């Protein structure tokens, strides 16, 4: 009974709103063209009013809610090529070249955790433990909500701390890693995909994305 009530109440409210909006639009916007047909401008105006009315009904967020995770799209050739050449440099033990290349990728795809993983490993190889750990922590902050990545980073941090001789801190990191249960399905569903590169979320492109999808992801959680 409660359930039905809730349902009816919701639907009734939505219906009333829609009807009201339509009525209002019809009243306010008398077609401006002489032949009585609505011009495109009329339609745009009506849509605007309808949109505003609808926004007032649902609590439009003042600040968009942060997504649970931001997953980077791995479809960019430039990034793949550079990561491959960084890998090759690493295999040859040429850490400096690897770092140069990785920083180049970082400028193209600054939110890709993989870059920070590789970068941290170069610093670890150079025995710069403090920087290695901080780069890995940056990776953690970018990989929020991506269990597989997070576990990889925490295991690396454990390794860095172990090598630097801080065994207690290393165990802590390892514990954090062990707490992360990997469930890849969840990540994909929650992911707010940001394609590589700065430009992919430009005004025009971004505007065409459905708004709901970009900011109300928490509702799916």
């Amino acid at each position, binding site marked *: 009974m409660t*359930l039905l009530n*809730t349902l009816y109440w919701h639907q009734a409210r939505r219906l009333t709103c829609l009807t009201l909006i339509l009525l209002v639009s019809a009243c306010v916007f008398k077609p401006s063209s002489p032949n009585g047909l609505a011009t495109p401008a009329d339609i745009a105006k009506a849509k605007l009013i309808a949109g505003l009315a609808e926004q007032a009904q649902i609590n439009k967020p003042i600040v968009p809610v942060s997504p649970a995770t931001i997953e980077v799209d791995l479809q960019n*050739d*430039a990034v793949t090529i550079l990561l491959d050449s960084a890998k090759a440099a690493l295999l040859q033990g040429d850490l400096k070249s690897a770092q140069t290349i990785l920083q180049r990728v970082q*400028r193209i795809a*600054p939110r890709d955790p993989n870059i920070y993983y590789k970068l941290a490993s170069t610093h670890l190889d150079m025995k710069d433990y403090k920087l290695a750990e901080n780069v890995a922590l940056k990776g953690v902050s970018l990989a929020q909500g991506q269990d597989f990545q997070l576990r990889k980073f925490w295991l690396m941090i454990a390794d860095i701390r172990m090598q630097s001789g801080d065994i207690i801190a290393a165990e802590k990191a390892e514990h954090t890693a062990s707490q992360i249960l990997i469930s890849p399905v969840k990540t994909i569903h929650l992911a707010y995909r940001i394609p590589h*590169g700065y*430009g992919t979320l430009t005004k*025009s492109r971004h505007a065409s994305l459905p708004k709901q999808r*970009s900011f109300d992801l928490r509702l799916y959680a």
Partner: protein
Amino acid sequence: MKYLYAQFQSLKFATKLSLAFLLLVSLGLIYTDYHIRQQFEGKRWAVPAKVYARPLELYVGSPLSSNDLKVELTRLGYQFVPKVVKPGQANISKTKTIIYTRGFKFTDSLEKAQRITIHYSGNQLTKITQSQSEDLSLIRLEPVLIGGIYPLNNEDRELIQLNEAPDAFIQALIAIEDRGFYEHNGISLRGISRAMLANLKAGRFIQGGSTLTQQLIKNFYLTSERTLARKLLEIPMALLLESHYSKADILEAYLNEVYLGQEGARAIHGFGLAAQYYFAQPLSELKLPHLALLAGLVKGPSYYDPRRQPKRAEKRRNLVLKVLYEQDAIDIFQYDSARLAPLGVVQQTSLSKGAYPAYLDLVRRQLRQDYPDEELSSEGLRIFTNLNPIAQNKAETALTKTISSLEKTHGKSIKGLQGGMIVTDPQTGEVIAVIGGRQTRYRGFNRALDTQRPIGSLVKPAVYLTAIEQGYNLVTELDDSPFELDMPNGTTWQPENFDLKSRDYVQLHQALAHSYNLSTARLGMSLGLDNVIDTLKRLGVERPLAPYPSLLLGAQGLSPLEVAKMYQTMASNGFQMPLRAIRRVTDSTGDELSRYPFELEQTIDNNSIHLLQYMLQETTRAGTARSIYDSMPEDINVAGKTGTSDLQRDSWFAGFAGNRLAVVWLGQDNNMPLPITGSSGALRAWTSYMVNETLEPFIAATPEDVEYLWIDQQTGMLSDKGCFGAQQLPFLSGNSPTERSECGIRKKNDAMPAVDRWINRLFE
């Protein structure tokens, strides 16, 4: 007999004398010879360090409009032509651009010169194709040369090799300056006699009859006085030089040595630099009339200065062309079209070198920590920086236009308004643009680095971050009523809100978004000044800060650069980073000497900073900076804070999107009060810059220990999605409000857990 003896004696004396003379001459020659060889073979010139902008990366998906690309190519001195056939040419249209790149040897790899076609739609690059092979994924354009670091004598030059000089140019130079260059041994008797004749006719010394070799000797080894002694020394030296070195060696040295112009204190030497200075192009890409003009300039760079004396310069150029035609080096068609061509000299203000004095200033300061001046100005080092000419261009336009429009609106009271600006990449800490004042090419006081002006409310995020770290949450109620504080020096501190009103209670997030002073001051005092100072330090403020209560409202003076560093930490989820202008330094051959890698240190907890980021977004969405969204698209999240100092002497805004962080300061150099606030001044410049950038929204994933809860805006109590006036706010786990609003209670009771999920699924 006696006579004979005397004669013998005098002969002996003469022989002795001539022997001694010969010995002296030989010694002199040997010394001169040694001197010549040493200088010719050693390091010939003090070559200033070259400073480069970042190279533009082109890849599928990169943010790039045809306009942006045009700015970059113009800065690089590309010619826009209908048909692209050689390096340095481009053809831009709406949907694609054809570029013949010049290629560049980077430290990590060589980018070869190639003809590519770039396709884009809107502000995004969609494809790179090349005629011979399949699509390219990634290429780098050569970097723009933005300046040099000069030696004390202010000689600037860009060394070139002989093969970089077009044949037509060598022909022109030899035709006009030294026709017999390839035949003579360093001096030309015909040339000297012609000159003597001319001197006799004129009755004074007007012509030197110098060969190129002699001119080189004169500039390279001797002073510039026109004396006979110098002339006498010049001849044996020229002969010696020719005996040791080939014509090609001598010509190459000449091309690099010769003086060709003056820009302020900077002396333009060599044709490599002259080509850039007059035509903004490499020598190898110049056309016949340009080359003829350069060859003609040797005779008198200031008399024939094509910028100041275009008529004289044109006459001189046409003379060179005429000589070439008479020697059959060019045909009548070439002669005619070159003769009628415009001079083609670019305006000094469009040159890339010298266009970014404020950025170069920052580069120089960062370099001086590692390199002595002497090394910077003489070793031909190459310095690769993070300057982004496209972003710098947009920032300059935004700042200068805002200043002029403010002057128009407010009239006299704001005349002479100045400003400074810094733009960085919040993800990497790289400084991509610096503006030192409204005259952006002026090499003077650098306001982005050297003004230390009270930052006003820009300091507040540090207070609220401290509060979050001490267990406050976003809806904690703060007291916003007036108060007085007796200071140790006997005065009374009596802060006021900007609107001169006070409120009994405000929620913490609203106090920051609306920048209330009373609640902030009260909050800061209860948190403890030392704790706020500690937060400021962790945010990246390095200078010592005195624990005065006025610190809480931003009495402390900082430079825009220092503010940028502080906000950088907020933008990058609590990681403090050095703001880097330089990527790497290499020697003249491209081998790396030092690098300035990506460095960072987490100084603020990820969860706490997330809450602060929320409040800074509320500031731009609904607080003091909400005017941003009058022109910013709704879906571009930005965060930031306005700042206005006491009596409105300074107008500040600091804020960031996902890929750009910018700090703007506006004020008078004489510290006069302004009719503008942070919102009505600096924020306008900031917004006008940002909306013209290709922006990525600021988005941070929700950290592990943060949860978003529905809150009733009025009361700050827990509410529900369906309740009127409910908003989702972030809370640290275990630190959320416990009281529930009336509607919130009803909703909670209404919904059975399983049913709730089912309903949700229905509606989403």
